[in-house]
């Protein structure tokens, strides 16, 4: 099933295009990594895919309903520096609980299962002991983890992560890759992740989307099935 489809997309900031003629399909049930150097428009591509920004030209669609008619739920972990509201008066557990809100609706009370999911998510990212801390008191890596826990608590069909390993040490990064890989392989979910650490993540992913700026100007998107594969398969 095609989860997201972008056709001939052009987008830029000011009068400069940063994405040129992008045609790319992302499939459900896969672990897809989006990689590329700084300024290659990785986060911009994610935002176009999610409908957070509109393309100058072309179409960007994101499926909102599964094949069986169920509404697709999406967990999103944006780039930490850009989005984390550190002055927000919230405890860690409050923030992670908010991941369940869309499942519960506006009025339904938390059930034992909801509490269990919140606890499990916090434990999976190693933040259960910090549950009563104010979010503003956490380090960069810990903030990243609780955003991840909030997305996991949502139990989404699709998990979209924008550079989630920023601020994490090597052991924590490996734990995260294993966790995400299990999410795809064992639970049949979809993971799309922007990352710089291609070599580290290569064994876990199904597909790599590489974005880069060419030396002569211009921009290119290629898709491969592994980190070491040649950039032969065009997007």
């Amino acid at each position, binding site marked *: 099933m095609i989860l997201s489809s972008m056709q001939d997309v052009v987008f830029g900031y000011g009068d400069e295009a940063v994405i040129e003629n992008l045609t790319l399909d992302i499939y459900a049930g896969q672990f897809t990594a989006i990689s590329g150097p700084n300024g290659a428009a990785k986060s911009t591509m994610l935002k176009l895919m999610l409908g*957070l920004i509109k393309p100058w030209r072309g179409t960007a669609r994101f499926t909102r309903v599964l094949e069986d008619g169920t509404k697709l739920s999406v967990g999103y972990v*944006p780039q930490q520096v850009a989005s984390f*509201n550190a002055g*927000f008066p919230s405890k860690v557990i*409050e923030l992670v609980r*908010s991941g369940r809100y869309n499942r519960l609706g506006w009025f339904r009370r938390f059930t034992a299962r909801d509490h269990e999911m919140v606890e499990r998510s916090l434990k999976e990212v190693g933040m259960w002991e910090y549950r009563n801390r104010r979010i503003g008191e956490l380090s960069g890596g810990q903030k990243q983890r609780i955003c991840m826990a909030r997305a996991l608590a949502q139990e*989404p069909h699709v998990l979209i992560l924008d550079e989630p390993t920023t601020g994490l040490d090597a052991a924590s990064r490996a734990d995260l890759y294993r966790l995400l890989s299990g999410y795809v392989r064992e639970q049949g979910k979809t993971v799309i992740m922007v990352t710089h650490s291609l070599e580290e993540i290569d064994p876990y992913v199904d597909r790599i989307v590489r974005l880069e700026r060419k030396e002569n100007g211009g921009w290119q998107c290629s898709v491969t099935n592994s980190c070491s594969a040649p950039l032969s398969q065009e997007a």
Partner: protein
Amino acid sequence: MAMLGYEFMQRAFIAGGLIGIIGPVLGLFLMLRRQALMADTLSHVSLAGVALGSLMNLNPVLTGFAVAVLGALIIEQLRRVYRTYSEVPVAIMLTSGLAIAVVLMSFSPNLSKSFSAYLFGSIVAVSDTQLRLIAIVAMAGVLFFIGLRRPLYQFAFDEETAFVSGTPVSLLSFMFAVFTGMTVAAAMPIVGVLLVSALIVLPASIALRLASGFLAAAVIAVAVGLCGVFSGLTASYYLNTPPGATIALILLAFLVAAVIVQKLLGIQHRNQKLNQYRRYNAYEKL
């Protein structure tokens, strides 16, 4: 309390109490959305509505109310245009609102005299229409903030994540803008145009310093808002000072006290930790 024997004081306490409940909660969300000056701006915009209503022989309370809501919606639209400069729409509307109000007031020299009640607030300025409006706004506010507390939490923390996870961000933005305009217009008779943001922003600033969680922040903001309004109105009655300014000064005193108490508690906590660390080191050496 002798002052409560007067009907105008009863009205002022009811109106102030209602605004003291919803204003601070609104202020909390405004501050979290980096829109602390929104209330100040809308009060100036509302003044243009009041002037317009007076010139056109309409009820100025209602025109001020309608123009404040319209102003809030325009700011929300401008916010999408100036995504990276969120303070720009606020500045544009603040100057535009005030400029329109001043020009409209110049058309009728008598009008400017009655404006001091709107600018600085007046206990006797709370009319039946205003009291009814304040009651409606307060009821709508309580329903809005309690009923939509979950999506509002997500929306205030991070709009993009909330949008992706399915929260109706556009609808919430619209409702929030309308409600902000309504609250500011309703609070104007109590504290006045120039000080309306004090009642909305100061209790929230205190709550943000003291609260450990979101619910606690809302409760502290409301408690501070109510204390500020009631003590401000009482002081204003006995000292014969303008109510808006008195309430604002009392809230400011609360803020200073909160900062000092927080600093002292911080020092005490640090000393306790230091003593624990010293005791632990001494034990290790043994």
